């Protein structure tokens, strides 16, 4: 940790989040949109870990509450990916498409 500051990590995390955000807006394939959601979750994880390392406590150790929160985020994201991909497969079976512009009705 020689010369890197907290702002460097926050900048990388923010740019990663921006990339994921742009991907969600630009891409029309629902699987790619899903991957970009994962990218945004990971950007949040990166800034949490950077803050955890930055706030060294009185005992000289990093703040582990943030790392526990990252652990929870990873767990919930894995569950979310499983459910989301199952929904995508069901949608593909019904409609034969993964393109969001082809899916316009709420009920079919």
């Amino acid at each position, binding site marked *: 940790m020689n010369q890197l500051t907290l702002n460097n*990590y926050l900048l990388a995390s923010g740019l990663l989040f*921006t*990339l994921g955000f742009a991907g969600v807006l630009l891409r029309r394939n629902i699987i790619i949109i899903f*991957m970009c959601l994962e*990218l945004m979750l990971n950007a949040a*994880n990166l800034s949490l870990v950077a803050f955890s390392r930055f706030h060294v406590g009185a005992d000289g150790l990093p703040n582990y509450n943030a790392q526990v929160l990252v652990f929870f985020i990873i767990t919930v994201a894995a569950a979310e990916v499983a*459910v989301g991909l199952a929904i995508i497969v069901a949608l593909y079976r019904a409609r034969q498409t993964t393109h969001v512009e082809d899916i316009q009705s709420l009920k079919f």
Partner: protein
Amino acid sequence: MLALGVSVILNRDPVASALSLVGSFVCLAALFVGLDAFFIGVIQILVYAGAVMVLFLFIIMLLDLRSEKRRSFNKLAIVGGVLVSSAFGAELMYVLSSFNQGKHPFPALSVTRLDDVRSVGTTLFTYFNLPFQVVGILVLVATIGVVVLSRRELK
């Protein structure tokens, strides 16, 4: 990491996109290890680069996405997406340039060898016991939901 992230959103082929996402996650795990969060780095590789991305690639193979290559990008979506995300990026730069606390380097640790798995575990089971059990229930519900979703045909 950021270059691979760019290639996730610019690649036409979903398989290439997914592989760049794997690379991006591995680089992110390296950053975690560089921040002395070894446990989180290992979990990142195991869960994301392992399980989640295998699931993604499996679904892409299963659905056989060929039609994506013929599609062109929507003009309005490109203009709107670039505008909104560059506005977000500019705002981020502004906020970070005025955040003076973050300009110091990271403080040193008191120990040279960190046993962070023990520390994360202690924190998890001491202060976050109830959320841990709630997450367990959540994973159970997600498992049942996936089974139900993939069994029944949607009409």
